[in-house]
């Protein structure tokens, strides 16, 4: 590594921030003129990972495509135009139309919104649960055994079958209460979130266990910091980096799980496009119109690939020991 000369050797990387010396020197560095915060340091490291930078750009592009896209391409994705069905690429419909004459480009944009929203929300739920359980069981010794038993229990559950079960069983009542689309969104997001927090919990617990023995925690406790403030101010910021990595990778799994459910026909209702649903709908006619399968599939794969690369880059940037793996 050709690192430029640094004022303090301790701040060579982000992982140094889990080190109390680095923390204190980072605090001192605030007074310095060329100070460097933990996050700008991570960003500097992250930028060197070429794959991750490309992935970040492409992912940004996909986000723009699904968020700004519908403002520019203003065809309603659910507008049925039977006379224009099964059309090929044309100026009016750049990516053609489906068997009901709905514009594929507009549907891809709308579908991407839902898929990415599901991925983000499910990830937030999973990460919240995971860090909560991880911090609690790492910090409070009495909670450790029962919480870890519970985590192991969840790890032993056959997840995909259970997800399928949950979705089939609770689809009807939730759709009746919250409307078919929003009820389904709630169901899928909670189901995915509730079944994918275990890895995050284990990672966070391990980190907290190590952190708890450090001097700065002892110092904070010795001046009478209550447990909740100790966790929020001192423990959580220091386990942020593994949480961030787990979060990024969590988005990828959530997107794949949602599309898998949609692909099995157990996802969102038919008039509500997601990428997985578009793929599922197109499979029946893939012999005649293969691109209808290819586009949503490519978008799913591309998004997941980007997210995975970003996660890889983040992990490298945050932990110099495993750089290049």
């Amino acid at each position, binding site marked *: 590594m050709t690192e430029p000369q640094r004022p303090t050797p301790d701040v060579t990387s982000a992982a140094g921030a889990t080190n109390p010396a680095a923390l204190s020197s980072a605090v001192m560095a605030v007074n310095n003129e060329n100070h460097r915060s933990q996050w700008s340091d991570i960003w500097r490291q992250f930028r060197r990972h070429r794959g991750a930078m490309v992935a970040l750009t492409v992912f940004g592009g996909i986000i723009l495509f699904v968020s700004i896209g519908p403002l520019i391409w203003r065809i309603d994705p659910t507008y049925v135009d039977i006379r224009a069905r099964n059309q090929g690429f044309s100026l009016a419909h750049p990516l053609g139309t489906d068997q009901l004459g709905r514009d594929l480009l507009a549907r891809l944009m709308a579908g991407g919104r839902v898929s990415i929203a599901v991925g983000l929300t499910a990830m937030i739920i999973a990460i919240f649960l995971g860090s909560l359980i991880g911090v609690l069981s790492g910090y409070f010794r009495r909670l450790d055994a029962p919480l870890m038993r519970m985590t192991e229990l969840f790890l*032993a559950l056959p997840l995909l079958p259970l997800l399928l*079960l949950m979705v089939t069983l609770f689809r009807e009542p939730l759709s009746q209460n919250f409307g078919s689309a929003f009820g389904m969104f709630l169901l899928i997001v909670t189901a995915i979130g509730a079944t994918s927090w275990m890895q995050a919990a284990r990672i966070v617990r391990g980190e907290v266990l190590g952190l708890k023995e450090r001097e700065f925690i002892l110092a904070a406790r010795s001046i009478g910091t209550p447990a909740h403030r100790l966790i929020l101010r001192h423990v959580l910021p220091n386990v942020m980096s593994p949480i961030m990595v787990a979060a990024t990778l969590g988005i990828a799994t959530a997107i794949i799980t949602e599309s898998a459910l949609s692909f*099995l026909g157990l996802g969102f209702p038919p008039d509500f496009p997601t990428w*997985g649903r578009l793929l599922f709908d197109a499979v029946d006619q893939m012999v005649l119109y293969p691109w209808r399968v*290819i586009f949503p599939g*490519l978008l799913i794969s591309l998004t997941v690939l980007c997210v995975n690369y970003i996660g890889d880059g983040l992990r490298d940037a945050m932990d110099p020991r495993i750089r290049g793996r």
Partner: protein
Amino acid sequence: MLTFIIRRLLLAIPTLLFISLVIFLLLEASPGDPLGDVPLTVPPEVRERMRAALGLGEPWPIRYLLWLKQFFWVEPLYWTDRWFGTSFSEGMQRIVSFQSRSPVFDVIAQRLPQTLTVVGMSYVVGVLIAIPIGILSAYRQYSLFDQIGTFISMVGFSMPTFFTGVVLIIVFAVNLQWFPSVYDTTLVVRDWDSFLAQARQMVMPVTVLALYNAAQISRFMRSSMLDNLSQDYIRTARAKGLSERKVVLKHALRNSLIPVVTVIALGLPAVFGGAIITEQVFRVNGLGQLLISSIYANDIPMVMTLTFIFAILIVVFTLIADILYGVLDPRIRYD
């Protein structure tokens, strides 16, 4: 070690009981009615009798205990009867599927071979591809091979199997017409021709799954190999003049395989259950497809039993992975 295994086995029992209870209660909470398909012209008292015949009349704790008894007592007895010609299970009720009215385990036994051949084969192929790739890309870190290998494994890891499967069908079954797109389960391998047909129909599902598995395992292999290649004992081995081949394939590889073997063991339950999507894409008549069709049909005993079998497999293989880890790596002690 023995005490560790015994302790873990004892711990597995409450875990499995709890999981079975969770699955049972989930199914219990379902609004779906197994008699939903019965025509409305059937009078209510007949309907009631049908419910009772399906065993749905009792309150749920009794049905749960009955299911446990059937699963852990009647079924093993039945299979010992079949294998040893005894008659322990005379007159006992086995778990019966709502949908096909035949015992659940008979249906599972019919479906198991398809799953095992296709999915098991793909796992073997995946491991066989992944290990050399992992070794080579760790040995030549940052080389062109490593860069390409890492990229491909990232892609293989990111592409969902339902997409790779469909793309393979479009390319090889529809356009090139090399392989059939639907897996024919009625095919019996009798002679050379039928063997070729079987091989041809297995190519695509096996490729899809093998690619996915290989992508994951090769990443593990690579990082574990990298860990070991930078160790002091490797430098020692080189310093004492061992050939590079021996250093890598004997000293480094053996140690690097330890975590990889456990990862492979942890992935094995997925061989039985996780290939649900691939089986659905290629219409392979296996366990995954059985699960999906019974979920659609509200076939509660079948869903319950299948899901629980998957849970048992996960628990057992996690235990095997832990034990393997201890056996292979003497630095790890469980006492």
